[in-house]
């Protein structure tokens, strides 16, 4: 119990207890890993209807230029991420990552143009470090970690219908649109995005109103609470990276197969080419390729292959190739799914490799990501 008293609670803690969530320590918080329905049913429910996730442990940060201009804030943040932020339109969101001088990834994040400032969402485990990083490097900006707001994700094919019962306007939003909407007098930031491969939303709301909103959403017959366990299996089927597993300071964005997140403006020949930490390596890898790549891996048998399982070219374990970085059972795929890093020579879809699991070498096939067909509303 000593440990749990040191763990932080989200604004929805009481709700998790009422819903009989199984609470576990995660990134310094007490979080529900699953509810009585269990990971399997929660995962399938999210893909079939709508799932509500408490992601209030994530860091919500406001970055505002002292000049008050969006352009100044965007240009400042572009010095830390290899993404086109200046070109992001008001009310639009984009995926990105902080890179370090050696071209590794310090964290991944979502960046929103909120008109006169940036709204940034970073990983829970990295938020203190990210805020310190931005405060140190963005001297022309005020950087504020907002600690009095909850973040509620609503994911799945019925997410729009569930949220439209509260805000009919959300039906007009497209993938990566962000709007400010009011709930009982409280201004909320609503983004049409998420981490499941499904259409859905993330709602930033004041801690005081979070319980009321979550409860109202859960009253809808299609909406059920979903824990971190299913959040992980959903994102893995969707081919999305988990920071600390699939990407970290030892992986470059190009090795991680995230080159799609770099827009033209920041690449060679672009208007604002380079100018972010590790640009020489990252732009070099874009031009010349890398020696290894993050790939999807489909175990041929029924056994899940977990993170840190070693990958080999042969069934005898002679030639080591790399490592699995995430692996679990995919309830929608109805079989095990994984991701990992392989040399470019072995990274083509269809290549067979072998994973060491409990002294055996299990065959896996390099697979195209994602494992499911995303239903983002583009």
């Amino acid at each position, binding site marked *: 119990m000593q440990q749990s008293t040191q763990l932080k609670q989200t604004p929805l803690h009481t709700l998790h207890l009422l819903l009989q969530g199984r609470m576990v320590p995660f990134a310094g918080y007490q979080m529900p890993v699953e509810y009585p329905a269990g990971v399997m049913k929660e995962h399938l429910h999210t893909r079939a209807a709508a799932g509500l996730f408490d992601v209030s442990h994530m860091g919500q940060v406001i970055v505002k230029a002292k000049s008050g201009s969006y352009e100044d804030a965007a240009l400042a943040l572009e010095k830390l991420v290899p993404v086109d932020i200046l070109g992001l339109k008001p009310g639009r969101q984009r995926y990105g990552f902080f890179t370090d001088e050696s071209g590794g990834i310090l964290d991944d994040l979502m960046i929103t143009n909120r008109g006169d400032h940036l709204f940034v969402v970073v990983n829970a485990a990295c938020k203190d470090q990210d805020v310190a990083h931005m405060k140190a490097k963005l001297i022309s900006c005020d950087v504020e970690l907002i600690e009095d707001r909850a973040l509620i994700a609503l994911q799945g094919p019925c997410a729009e219908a569930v949220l439209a019962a509260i805000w009919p306007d959300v039906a007009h939003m497209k993938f990566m649109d962000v709007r400010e909407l009011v709930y009982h007098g409280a201004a909320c930031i609503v983004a049409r995005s998420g981490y499941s491969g499904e259409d859905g939303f993330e709602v930033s709301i004041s801690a005081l109103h979070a319980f009321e909103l979550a409860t109202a959403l859960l009253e809808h017959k299609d909406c059920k609470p979903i824990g971190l*366990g299913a959040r992980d*299996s959903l994102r893995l089927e969707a081919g999305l990276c988990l920071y600390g597993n699939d990407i970290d300071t030892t992986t470059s964005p190009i090795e991680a197969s995230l080159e799609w997140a770099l827009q033209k403006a920041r690449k060679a020949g672009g208007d604002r080419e380079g100018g972010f930490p590790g640009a020489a390596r990252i732009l070099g890898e874009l031009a010349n390729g890398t020696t290894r790549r993050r790939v999807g891996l489909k175990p041929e048998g029924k056994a899940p292959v977990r993170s840190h399982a070693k990958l080999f070219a042969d069934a005898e374990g002679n030639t080591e190739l790399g490592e699995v970085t995430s692996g679990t059972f995919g309830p929608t795929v109805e079989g095990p799914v994984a991701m990992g890093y392989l040399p470019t020579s072995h990274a083509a879809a269809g290549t067979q490799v072998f994973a060491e699991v409990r002294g055996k070498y299990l065959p896996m096939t390099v697979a195209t990501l994602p494992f499911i067909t995303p239903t983002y509303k583009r």
Partner: protein
Amino acid sequence: MLKFTAEHEWLKLDGDVATVGITSYAAEQLGDLVFVELPKVDQELVKDGNGATVESVKAASDVYCPLNGTIVEVNQAIVDDPSLVNSDPQGAGWFFKLKLKNVADADALLDEAAYKDLIA
């Protein structure tokens, strides 16, 4: 006679053969099982050695062998459908039958009342 271990296994003794499985409490803690790996028939197992492996969506867990003995039968049904372990852990979800090296060893295991105290 029904016996239990502190590692949340149950044993049903019939002569010198024990049918072994995991308790309802263990099945609930593990969550939905998606994969089961069982020992082979005729395999000799030692007490506290690895008896079987179960995997939920979240993680892999070892099922320890509760006593010294030889595997005489395994339950292929839970390999084909691991959810049987969740739905009927102390019945159709049994793991394996172990011919005990020394039947008297079972006396040292927990009885049902002692196990219930342990998980209370």
